[in-house]
């Protein structure tokens, strides 16, 4: 049913259609509206046969989901940012135990400095924990990916994160087609666990594993993610048959056929990039886009197929591996390793801590890739003036004070001497 609806509420309604049996909630911006709406639906009876549990931390939220899932219930939770880090130990544990929990990440920056706005640092920090990670471009896709995520997670007995840009998606009111219950029931079979705690058939789960088998356990996790490469495409195909629209899959392409520059990005920024590409194509610039949906498993083969041909690939990402540079760019580089005629990869870090990624900035960036391509990592719209001043200051003064506060003071007051003196 078509609705004009806030992204979080649309996702909540989509998740409810998946008939979750245990939902654990702990408040953290910007995912709160999702669990608030789910809690309301449990109270009103719109979502039946579901335990909604308010817990005291994110670590507990995921731990409760682990227990529920191991006992055979379909379990869901949501978090973001510091919350994801606080539950980090349980994130690895859910994956290691092979429990198909589905979790929404309302993508948000990680502090310090504390920041509630969107970037992808949180999801990227847990990318190697053994979860599948799917990034939504729109709120429609966010709804659809949750439905696919439960099916994927349960098919492989592997937890799955659906990553949605905080505020940009979670708080945006737009048109979303929320599916009907019968359609979702047709698409998503009941959860049949591969392991379950049951007094009628007692098993031990979570024994210590030594050097004799640990590598093999990890290998099988990795192997299952390689199976997911096929299943993600397959389930997206079945989704299209059932619901009549393209959502999910490993990646999507936009105007790539004759492109001499290709952009690679994840999440909601792809909309802005498409608009920019349309404008640049009107000016005769042959540019296209590859939208990555799956970051885990990372679709090396699929990416290689679409990236070979153009001269330049610009990777735009909302995360930074401090001391290394762009993480997604490194992944794209890996996909192109040892490929004859591979394009040059140009890394761009953009939109950190919620900084808007604007069309004018993208225009400048993409044109520069054609005439003056760069090495290393480029920081989009970096305020170089304020950085130069701060660097000059800290070279002169040993007790220069806290960096974040110094920068804020400079920006707000233009003060030459940022410290209290």
């Amino acid at each position, binding site marked *: 049913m078509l609705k004009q609806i806030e992204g979080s509420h649309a996702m909540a309604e989509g998740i409810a259609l998946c008939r979750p049996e245990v939902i654990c909630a702990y408040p953290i911006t910007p995912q709160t509206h999702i669990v608030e709406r789910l809690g309301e639906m449990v109270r009103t009876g719109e979502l039946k046969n*579901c335990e909604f549990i308010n817990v005291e931390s994110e*670590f507990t939220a995921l731990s409760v989901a682990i227990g529920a*899932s191991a*006992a055979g219930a379909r379990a869901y939770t949501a978090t973001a940012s510091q919350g994801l880090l606080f539950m980090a130990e349980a994130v690895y544990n859910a994956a290691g135990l092979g429990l198909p929990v589905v979790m929404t990440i309302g993508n948000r920056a990680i502090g310090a400095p504390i920041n509630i706005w969107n970037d992808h640092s949180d999801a990227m920090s847990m990318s190697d924990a053994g979860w599948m990670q799917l990034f939504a471009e729109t709120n429609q896709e966010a709804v659809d990916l949750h439905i696919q995520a439960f099916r994927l997670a349960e098919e492989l007995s592997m937890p799955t994160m659906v990553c949605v840009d905080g505020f940009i998606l979670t708080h945006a009111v737009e048109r979303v087609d929320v599916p009907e219950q019968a359609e979702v029931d047709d698409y998503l079979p009941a959860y049949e666990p591969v392991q379950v*705690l049951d007094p009628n058939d007692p098993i031990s789960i979570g*024994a210590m594993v030594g050097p004799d088998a640990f590598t093999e356990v990890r290998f099988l996790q990795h192997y299952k993610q390689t199976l997911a490469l096929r299943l993600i495409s397959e389930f997206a195909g079945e989704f299209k048959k059932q619901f009549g629209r393209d959502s999910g899959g490993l990646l999507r392409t936009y105007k790539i056929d004759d492109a001499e520059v290709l952009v690679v990005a994840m999440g909601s920024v792809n909309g802005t990039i498409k608009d920019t590409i349309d404008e640049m194509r009107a000016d005769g610039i042959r540019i296209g886009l590859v939208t990555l949906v799956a970051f885990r498993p990372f679709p090396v083969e699929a990416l290689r197929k679409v990236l070979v041909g153009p001269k330049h690939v610009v990777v735009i990402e909302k995360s930074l591996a401090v001391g290394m540079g762009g993480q997604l760019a490194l992944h794209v580089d890996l996909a192109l390793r040892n490929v004859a005629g591979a394009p040059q990869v140009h890394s761009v870090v953009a939109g950190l801590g919620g900084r808007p990624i604007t069309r004018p900035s993208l225009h400048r960036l993409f044109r520069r890739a054609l005439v003056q391509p760069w090495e290393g990592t480029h920081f989009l719209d970096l305020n170089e003036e304020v950085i130069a001043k701060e660097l000059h200051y800290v070279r002169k003064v040993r007790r220069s004070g806290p960096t974040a506060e110094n920068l804020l003071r400079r920006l707000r007051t233009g003060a030459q001497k940022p410290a209290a003196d």
Partner: protein
Amino acid sequence: MTNGTTSAAIQKLHFYQKGTFTVGNRLVSEADRSVQASIDRSNALTCGHRACQGCGEALGARYALDAALRAAGGNLIAVNATGCLEVFTTPYPETSWQIPWIHSLFGNAAAVATGVAAAMRVKGRPEIRVVAQGGDGGTTDIGFGCLSGMFERNDDVLYICYDNEAYMNTGVQRSSATPPAARTATTPAVGPQPGNVFGTGKSVPKIAVAHGIPFVATATVADLHDLERKVVKAMGIHGARYLHIHVPCPLGWGSASQDTIRLAQLAVECGMFPVFEAEHGVVTGRRKIRRRVPVEDYLKPQRRFAHLFTTEEGRKCISQLQAMADRNIAEYRLFDWEGDVE
């Protein structure tokens, strides 16, 4: 007894064979006999585990879970925190557990148990009961947040803490349940104030009582009848329940493996470990001390306290520990024979 006899004239009857209230099976009614004495007893934790000789935790866990399993009619799921119990019971491909059992992390046993209990409700299987268990480190330290949350939500979980007063699995480091003056690997018996620091630590049973949950009890492997009775009582109640069992650790305490029961008994009799129970925030019962002993009797057989017996400073520490025991006795009225009807 005849009508008109004054209560003072009634001879109080205590069943005991040893220095405690322990009652031999043959002296009690069928219904009160130990689960372990029954030929058709349940067996949650079988032999073959890798616990040390004289392990108090293995004994406590076997009695507690067998009693729980029986009370639940065999419908029991156990969640285990990381620790000795987890490691020594599951040397895969062998497992000592005859019941469904899951180990997730060190600090989340209470939360995982909440999830299992929720799943049982939603799956329409409320007859399946859930026990979470951990050592003192997993309970009073790293798992405390999850534990308090489980209490506060009154989730339908019996949490059992096996308290051996330090992190034994990692090599005897101090926990918030380590008694003052005790030597551990991180509170060495050196310097002007050897051993664990006075004025530190916490009583999680008391904190559990403060949550107002339906049932809180402490127990000890020196009195297995009492332990079983408390487990059965806890299993008869729905909501959050907490059982704190004192389990001597020969390795960590530096005691002889055959002294486990004796030390557990001395801990109670000197007042260092008060045995009591509480319902909905109110203390409703205590195990009185029958033959009070000085704390020295309890401390002396343990090498973790050996440094206290060699110096004048150590003697002062013993007095301080005696004062702690005396405070426990006064607080829980453990040695008050007036009005005793037990």
